[in-house]
């Protein structure tokens, strides 16, 4: 009851400030299972896209929220769970990220663990890439494809803790980790895997809203998409992938400001895309990003 009232109130405020328009270009608003993926410029994006969806879709569509931001006060936690019905994902913020590898490094006999940790690790990410889940992805090339990026991420992490030498995580390590992750510790894998909550939401039949850039961009072009979208798309081939462009929200509340100003915003939904036969990860992600950018000018 209270949640519903708050929802209405919030909806009223969002409409007053931004108009919260939804523009359905490539597809109609329809109650089928969908993954909406959008550009990410502001914390308000979550609220924005939630408000733009029609009432009957809002109840079956779950936005994802970074746990470190949206669950750090009781009020925010209440609003994200009760009002938005959001799915939390771990975005390892700087402090937890530096803390997490420490216990992993303490047990050097299990190299897979740190490897997975690093894959989930870098700071300022909402949606870490999905290397741990890759065994579910069919093509072996994808595993080869993973290596450079995973290596990058390991490199990125290396300046935080001193103990693990580069030799612990050579480019060949992540495939080893991924092949081992599924069979050896099936119970532990979902717990540490950042995408597990999303997978669960999709399994239960809900639609989700994700921001594949990971971080909030500044203005203009979105950044490169993280691989989570591809993994989810290959895991759930029946779910419709709908690109969305959120316009103007960064003007309403730029990074670092608390008071929003009223400026009309819109969410444009485009034509659904899908992973083609044998399409590799990077080309697909680039295509998805292009589909989102193309909506800016319609």
């Amino acid at each position, binding site marked *: 009851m209270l949640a519903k009232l708050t929802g209405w109130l919030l909806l009223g405020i969002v409409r007053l400030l931004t108009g919260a328009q939804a*523009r359905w270009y490539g597809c109609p608003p329809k109650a089928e299972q969908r993954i909406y993926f959008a550009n990410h410029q502001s914390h308000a994006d979550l609220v924005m896209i939630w408000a733009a969806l029609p009432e009957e879709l809002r109840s079956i569509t779950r936005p994802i929220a970074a746990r470190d931001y949206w669950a750090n006060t009781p009020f925010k936690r209440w609003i994200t769970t009760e009002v938005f019905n959001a799915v939390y994902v771990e975005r390892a913020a700087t402090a937890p990220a530096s803390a997490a590898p420490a216990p992993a490094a303490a047990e050097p006999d299990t190299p897979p663990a740190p490897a997975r940790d690093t894959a989930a690790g870098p700071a300022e990410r909402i949606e870490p890439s999905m290397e741990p889940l890759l065994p579910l992805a069919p093509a072996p090339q994808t595993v080869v494809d993973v290596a450079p990026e995973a290596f990058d991420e390991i490199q990125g992490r290396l300046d935080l803790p001193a103990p693990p030498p580069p030799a612990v995580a050579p480019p060949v390590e992540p495939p080893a980790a991924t092949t081992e992750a599924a069979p050896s510790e099936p119970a532990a894998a979902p717990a540490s895997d950042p995408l597990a909550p999303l997978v669960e939401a999709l399994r239960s039949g809900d639609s989700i809203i994700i921001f594949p850039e990971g971080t909030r961009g500044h203005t203009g072009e979105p950044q490169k998409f993280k691989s989570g979208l591809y993994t989810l798309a290959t895991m759930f081939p029946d779910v419709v992938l709908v690109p969305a462009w959120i316009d103007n929200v960064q003007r309403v509340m730029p990074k670092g400001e608390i*008071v929003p100003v009223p400026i009309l915003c819109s969410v444009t939904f485009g034509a659904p895309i899908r992973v083609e036969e044998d399409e590799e990860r990077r080309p697909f992600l680039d295509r998805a990003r292009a589909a989102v950018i193309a909506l800016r000018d319609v």
Partner: protein
Amino acid sequence: MNQFLRSLTPTQQVATLFLIVFGLLVIASTTALFLSFRERRNPVHDATWQAELAHYRKLLGTTWFMVIVFWVGWALGETVATVLFALIAFFALREFITLSPTRRGDHRSLILAFFVVLPIQFWLVATARFDLFTVFIPVYVFLAIPVASALANDPSHFLERNAKLQWGIMICVYGMSHVPALLLLSFPGYEGKSAFLVFFLVFVVQTSVLVQHVISRRSQRKPFAPNVSRSFNWTSWGIGIVVASLVGALFSFITPFKFGQALAVSFIACIAGSMGHLVMKALKRDRGIPNWGKKGVGVTGANGLLDRVDALCFAAPIFFHSIRWYFNV
């Protein structure tokens, strides 16, 4: 008939007026509906006919919207009317700012404009502090906004950005706030009837815009400033002004003015309104848009509001100040 109208109380008179206006609108809308059933043989003619009819219906929709707003404003009293116009000003300013790109450094100035200047201005109107509300924006706000911008530490396009914001405040807040201010003017022997004054202004300005539009469609004259407006030419403009002023003069019985005075004030209001409409067209052309709605696709009801009130925003302050100065009320 006249005797009967005079015997009514002011409230009943205003109610009668609204009844008449709504009746006329219903007739006009029904006519438009029936006309749309008619089909021309020639498909080209039919297309143009339908397009013209659609345009006409859009204008009618605008008129309906305005009349309903004023009716609600009048029915619920002066304070509610002021709040209503404050909301309109808010939405109009929102549209204006949306389509005038601002930068990161403007954020604080925008907060100031929306959440400080606008409420204060309308509060000044509601409390009838005439001497302050006429100078609050042009004097205090216009000097304060650049200060807020300068403190944001972003010098690029400084003058441009401030001009945009100040112009938006001037049109949407200052201009709009003069409409409810009319309700507070007290002419001797005219108590309780100031809603007529608002009606008079809106009616006259809307008539001039409408007549001008219809005539320029019919006459196909060369536009005077084709880069700004393809329909504006001096002939249709003149006819529009004259017709609307005469209509205003005929309606002098609902105002505190005599026939000649009503003619003069409606003439002034019409010139200001139609010129304001032209100015706003130039602004829209500069932004590369046909109207203030979001890229022509309006989903929320608030879209394109500025299109509807732009003439009024210019006419209201000039109307207000000229009658206040002349009649010394």
